[in-house]
């Protein structure tokens, strides 16, 4: 490597992007007609004024789903790092990665079994259980 590539094309590109975006937002802000009547800026909810806010405390199972998503995303990040260095780390590295994946799989199986991944309607679940019980 003899010297880093020049930075000015990148700067030019960035300036171009900024200018274009500023033009688009600015022009659409200025152009056209506007009106502001009594309920123009009220959120649309099938024509009825809404109740409460959209910032709700949701049930914990949504948090659980979100955190599971994050866990398996992070797993991909870690495995990616290992994949880059797979030849250098050799069999020992492979074994470590395998243990890591297996641990996650065991955790996933546990969650699955304990019903943490179920997001369907409770009414349907109740009926399915009743049907299962009947089958037994």
């Amino acid at each position, binding site marked *: 490597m003899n010297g880093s590539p020049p930075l000015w094309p990148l700067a030019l590109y960035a300036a171009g992007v900024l200018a274009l975006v500023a033009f688009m937002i600015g022009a659409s802000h*200025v*152009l*056209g*007609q*506007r*009106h502001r*009547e*009594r*309920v*123009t800026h*009220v959120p*649309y*909810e*099938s*024509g*009825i*004024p*809404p*109740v*409460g806010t959209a910032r*709700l*405390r*949701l*049930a*914990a*199972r*949504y948090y659980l789903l979100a955190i599971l998503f994050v866990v398996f995303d992070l797993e991909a990040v870690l495995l990616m790092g290992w994949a880059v260095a797979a030849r250098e780390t050799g069999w020992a590295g492979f074994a470590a990665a395998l243990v890591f994946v297996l641990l996650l799989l065991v955790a996933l199986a546990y969650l699955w079994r304990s019903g943490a991944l179920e*997001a*369907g*309607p*409770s*009414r*349907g679940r*109740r*009926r399915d259980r009743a049907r299962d019980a009947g089958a037994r």
Partner: protein
Amino acid sequence: MPPTIPSLAPEAMAETVRRSVLVARLQDLLAWGRKNSMWPYGFGLSCCFVEMATSLTSKFDIARFGAEVIRGSPRQADVMIVAGTVFRKMAPIVRELYEQMMEPRWVISMGSCANSGGMYDIYSVVQGVDKFMPVDVYIPGCPPRPDAFMEGLLLLRNAVGSERRPLSWVVGPQGAYRLELPAQREAKRVARQRVTTLARPDAVSAAEAEAPPAPPSTAVTAPRVTVAPPRAGEAPDPIAALQEALGAETVQVQATCDGIPTAWVSAARVADALQLLKSGLPAPYRMLYDLSAIDERWRRNRADQPPSDFTLVYQLLSLERNAYVRVKVALTGEHPTAPSIARLWPNANVYEREVWDMFGVGFDGHPCLRRILMPEGWVGHPLRKEHPARATEMEPYRLPDDLFDEALERLRFKPEAWGLKRGRDGTDFMFLNIGPQHPGTHGVLRLIVQLDGEEIVDVVPDIGFHHRGAEKMAERQSWHTFIPYTDRIEYLGGVMNNLPYLLAVEKLAGIEVPPRAQTIRVMLCELFRLASHLVWYGTFAQDVGALSPVFYMFTDRERIFGITEAITGGRMHPSWFRIGGVAADLPRGWDRMLREFLRTMPQRLAEYDRLVMRNRIFQARTRGVGDYTRDEAIDWGVTGPGLRACGLAWDARRRMPYSGYEQFDFEIPTGTHGDAYDRAVVRVAEMRQSLRILEQCLAWMPEGAYTSSHPHATPPVRERMLHDIETLITHFLSVSWGPVIPAGEAFVGIEATKGNNGYYLISDDGTGAYRARIRTPSFPHVLMVPHIARGWMVADLLAILGSIDFVLSDVDR
């Protein structure tokens, strides 16, 4: 209020253009762009919306004009089509949606109701949407045909293409400049005057019309199978049982001309009497079929009945006996009360609310006695005799800002007022409004859904946005002129709505309908059942994500309309049945059209099975969803396909035959699980049975008169008129006032498209009904939704709504 749009004379317009050639060019470009990319708002109020939706489908194909991008939100739409009746309860919402649209925005008023109130000069209807909103184009018609809608859209496009609008909201004067729109009536006058040969509305070819009438067919008599309705053996007389249990002197019997056993009991004992009929008899009357009231204060002919100011009428149905029983309670005073029977039947809760709302009769012990059809804050109870009927007898409707704010605040849902919690176990519930303006509710129905995440904790239905005051209208119209209003009760069922009304009138007047008229009626009813089921089929598939089937099904519906138009001259609301028969004989060539339809339709249905019913996604969305048991269905007063999907083969055409249905050979399809899928299976199977009935109509159409010669039949026979002055006067009176139907009461219920539809008519020896109670199937079906939907997800709610198949005018009347 929004600013009125100034208009310029052509010379001034030209001046504006000359001022700046460059700007004018740019504005031309913009106007051209606006003109060719109009996005309509998917906004519908009533019948007209169905015709507007039809314009999207293949025969009409509005995509030709670049206007097929129907938007679900006012923020994205350019043109709002006010399609249908503007109700007082709905008007503030219409204005809110208009205000939420972005610039530029246009309004088309579609149909007579939106233009001026149309035939609904009634307390609940605003006499024209332009009372509180600017309108660009008016489309006449009731409903306007899809072609008329498209012409209206083209007129608006042309106007938009010549408009001048400011380029920016910060520069220069605001407001749009446009050419004056000429009235189309003036523009087309000369051309219309020149027309001498009118187009045949019936699509019967010219050759057929010119041909001599075919000789009467020989195979016209003795149809077919006569299937006797099953009988309940030796079930004890309900009135005798009541007299035995409550004491003979406390139960008064009333003779009615419909043969339904009718007993008067005291308010104190009504719950006991109903409990006995519900569960204390062999073959009990398990279904609360209807509950309503009569304002007796102005009634003259009721000498055989106990004195009463307001009478409550409880009508029960026994599915084993195939029979009704009626229990009446006399109440005295201006605002009397009666004990609530909400603990006996779950649907009694909503029926009692309706009686309170319409009559001001209270119910002691009712859990939540509040208005159900009229908006909160309404003064008076509309079905009381002193309440004005016409909108034009009341103050004109206005919507100034303060009333607008007040109306919106009343609409805002207050969970505490309904006893709903705002959260549990540290999580908050979301209260979501689904409707009145929502594509999934198939009309102006509002469901307030209490959600834990995506799961439905509870649902509060809010109805009455489609209340057109049909029962009050019946008290004002003559017996004959009420017929068009019945068409619009269940606006997908067309003439099938005429039938229960006319059967009840004919029962009161003692009119025998000739066999040919009966068979024509059956044939048209089954055609409309098919048309209605096709709309349900397509929209239900659309509700659960299959977007294309609806286009195929509307195409078939158009083919049915081709036949009904040839016969009746009308599409959605032909109003073609008459007291004593039908309006005209069948046109030549009807059999060819029907035969052609019957030849192709089975293949189409087979194709739809592959397209929808066997579709795995469709099955996953509907199987097991929204199920209820047979007992729940009976408790809630469910009739029609919703009842048969639970495995109960109860069809009024078979169990209580009317209009000659006992002579037809058809089966009653049933389901087993009572879920959304089975309801669909039942309807699809029913369509095949309708085709079978139509084949029999085609094969055995009887000869003879198409209307009765009874003096009360309408319109009166012309041959009887021109003999002397007496016959002329009689004819004139029968045309202008219509027949005077003898005093009495009669109820007739039929198997309509959505379930059992019935008319309970009371004549006070007058030229119109003293009271007309319209029992519609969709009312209990929709108010049962909370019971079905609890515990399911929001997405399932739409599958449940689609599978119920309701029409809002059938809920609110």
